[in-house]
């Protein structure tokens, strides 16, 4: 089967890092990612099922890996060589069971909740996994499968960027409702991330929320706030302001429910206006930190610059939610200390607690995807042979007016199989 594989070759990571300085996604040409004809992953035992990917998305963390820009922090949480791709819509190649224990039939469409937690690893459940909070699993590099925080980073399971099957554990499988299109379904995973991040904000109806960045995650956060309010699960923030670099992103953000969508360099100005803050001095010739600011800032970029800006526009006692995958950053935290600001991470998903009810993030995300039909955010489908183009497109999604780029791996085959 044809699959894209990332090998542990230091020289290729270095080359990717160099080439990607000319643009995100360019690392595909010289980097560690290569297209191979490779055997399908072996059966991993009871509870594991064969799933053939149909669509697989390209996310920011994938681009960082392909470009050799991922943090060294992840070194012990991946195993090489691995097939990337954790945003996966697939079809069951055999009958099985889903995460709730309900039966799945051969040919059923499923999405992968890709975290490889204790259940998948065949070990006693850690506290987090026992609660269903798999994103906080403590044991991502032990058990009978090799290290890998998610499918798409593990040498044993295969990944989404593959024309052949991958192996998925029952705890990872969620059946896709018929009402969702394939494009809708492939956005469930990123929407789950966005939803989890939005809920990590712990906002109220009087909160001013600023969202920094309007790629898939940023737009997903906007959609999440709108969805949660529309379904009565949490109040709408009093003001939702999005800083987006490109006009097309601003238009989508407004469509999804942002009160204001402004160019990134205008975000601080808009937050100041909305919160009636003052400005304390200047910072490098630009507007200085706000005296007040947004109650919550959701950083969907994850760079030193975005964290610095988040700290400058968050209110004293406010909260910064980091959804964008950060790496090593050099930021002055004096303001964080003096203004008692909280920074919290928002990684992946697990379960959410809403009004005393505990619900898996993926279930909530499916509902949200159905509410917004976020499949409209899928801007282009590429066959796996054109992976360099696909990654370059994903790396330049904003300027090219795109949001989510996906690999089309077997939609035709899946449809034929279903009809047959």
């Amino acid at each position: 089967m044809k699959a894209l594989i990332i090998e542990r070759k230091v020289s290729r990571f270095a080359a990717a890092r160099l080439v990607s300085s000319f643009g995100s996604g360019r690392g595909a040409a010289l980097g560690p990612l290569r297209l191979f004809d490779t055997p399908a992953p072996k059966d991993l035992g009871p509870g594991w099922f064969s799933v053939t990917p149909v669509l697989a998305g390209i996310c920011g963390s994938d681009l960082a890996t392909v470009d050799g820009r991922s943090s060294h922090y992840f070194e012990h949480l991946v195993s090489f060589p691995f097939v990337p791709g954790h945003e996966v819509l697939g079809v069951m190649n055999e009958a099985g069971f889903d995460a709730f224990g309900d039966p799945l039939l051969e040919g059923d469409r499923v999405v992968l909740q890709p975290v490889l937690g204790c259940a998948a690893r065949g070990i006693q459940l850690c506290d987090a996994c026992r609660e269903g909070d798999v994103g906080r699993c403590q044991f991502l590099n032990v058990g009978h499968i090799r290290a890998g925080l998610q499918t798409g980073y593990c040498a044993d399971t295969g990944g989404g960027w593959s024309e052949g099957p991958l192996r998925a554990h029952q705890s990872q499988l969620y059946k896709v409702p018929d009402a969702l299109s394939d494009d809708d379904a492939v956005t469930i995973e990123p929407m789950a991330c966005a939803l989890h991040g939005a809920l990590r904000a712990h906002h109220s109806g009087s909160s001013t929320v600023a969202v920094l960045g309007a790629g898939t995650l940023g737009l997903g956060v906007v959609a999440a706030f709108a969805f949660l309010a529309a379904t009565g699960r949490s109040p709408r923030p009093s003001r939702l302001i999005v800083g987006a670099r490109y006009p097309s992103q601003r238009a989508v953000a407004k469509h999804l429910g942002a009160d204001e969508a402004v160019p990134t360099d205008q975000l601080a100005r808009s937050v100041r206006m909305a919160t009636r803050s003052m400005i304390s001095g200047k910072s490098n010739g630009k507007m200085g930190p706000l005296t007040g600011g947004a109650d919550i800032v959701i950083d969907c970029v994850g760079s030193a610059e975005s964290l610095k800006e988040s700290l400058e526009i968050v209110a004293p006692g406010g909260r910064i939610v980091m959804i964008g995958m950060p790496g090593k950053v050099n930021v002055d935290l004096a303001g964080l200390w003096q203004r008692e600001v909280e920074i919290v991470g928002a990684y992946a998903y697990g379960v959410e607690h809403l009004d005393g009810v505990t619900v898996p993030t993926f279930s909530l995300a499916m509902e949200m995807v159905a509410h917004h039909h976020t499949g409209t955010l899928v801007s282009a489908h590429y066959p796996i042979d054109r992976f360099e183009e696909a990654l370059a497109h994903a790396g330049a999604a904003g300027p090219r007016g795109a949001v989510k780029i996906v690999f089309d791996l077997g939609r035709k085959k899946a449809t034929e199989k279903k009809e047959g």
Partner: protein
Amino acid sequence: MNPRPGFVLEVDRSTPPTLMWKGESFGLQKLPTGSRIVYAPEPFDALEDPQGAIRDALENPTGDQKPLSALLFAGMRLTICFDDISLPLPPMLAPDIRQMVIEAVLDQAAESGVDDVVLIAALALHRRMTEPELRHALGSRVYDAFAPHGLLMQHDAEDPSNLIHLGQTDHGEDVEINKRAAESDLLVYVNINLVAMDGGHKSVATGLASYKSLRHHHNPKTMRHSKSFMHAPSSELHSANWRMGRLIKDSGVNIFQIETTLNTNTFPESFQFLQKREWEWGIKDRMAFAASSRALDLAPRKMARNILQGIKAPHALRTVYAGEVEAVHEKITADVWEQQGVAVSGQTDIVTMGLPYISPYNVNSIMNPILVACLGLGYFFNSYRGKPVVREGGVAILFHPTRPEFHPGHHPSYIDFFEQVLTETTDPVVMSERYEEAYATDPWYIHLYRTGHAYHGVHPFYMWYWCSHAMEHLSKVIIVGGDPATVRRLGFQSATTLDDALEMAKDSVGMSPTITHLHTPPLLMADVT
């Protein structure tokens, strides 16, 4: 010899190109044959003895008011208010007319034994003046006598402890003005009547008012019903100020109004060609034009701006009246029209204007895009009596680079207005309903207005409202040489050349439009019949 009156020239093949202002530069522009050019009257002669004329006015008041000396007495509270940096344009060579008048008033106050005297710059919602600007307006002798003792103030429209609510007019308009001025035994107001809308009851009712008061007439409805601001009987802005002014008078505020007209001698010797008619340019004028236009084009923008903002006008006092507000204003307005009025027969399809580097709100500052719109559509468009120079549904073609440049210290709320409001709407009514109050009450803008040199947060709205009448009247506004993205943000169209602009105007005004160019500065007001 009497100065020559203004006139309308019809362009023919022998007409030389006309001088065209383009912000911080200027050039020569050939206008199509058959176009009309409206030239301002030549500057009237200066008074030979301005100090004598001022003293005479103070002692021989106009209307129902006593001579100044009869109003002054020992132990009284005297407040002298004066127009701010927005007048005159360009700032005049020293001594400034304010200095001359205030020195005369202070001399009389001293003779009468008045020692409780305060000077107040009547800023309304304008920026506070800097020390050099105050020294220039008042002279160092006055400045040094008052400022160190805290007796030279700048009106603070956001200081509730120094505002007094005098009541509401019969139209429900709040009248809230400077408390010290209102509670003085005598309020002397020193005006510079640069244009016909200056002075009268507007001096106190606007210059010393708060946002609570100003919002009643600085709004789109009033602006659209002021046709024009320069012609009192047709100006709702004038009517509102008069209602307020009469309430102020009825409240017992004793005002001694001093109004002055300057001649239109606008440019110093080295730039005299700027106010001459082009066919009368001599060798010296041609050389000055060539050298200065080239130098301004080549100079870094900041240097060009500094050169032009450094110009001091050789304005001279032409007339001065003092006494009762309305009587004084009636006389002075007639004088302004005499100096600036030009008879224009019939309207035109297209009006063209070269916009200079300065407007009332960017003295020693930057003419940002909102002020560009205001100068062209608020001031020049409205410089008429009878009917606008351009017909309803006609086109205005302005010349200005219209760069997205702002003075962050002077115009902070303008930046937000440009980035937030104008990206949402250019409709004055919509923006007034949706955004005005938030800007007017924003604590950061209020802080900068009170402690820095920033225009009030609501000021960009007012500038946009000034354009309301023109925007409703015109079918299209085209800015030649304007930055395309900025001009689009303003809701206008940009063109590279006049020919392109005329081509773009055709779908509004047909294939053979009539064109009229306003050759200003010097200031002119069109008496359109």
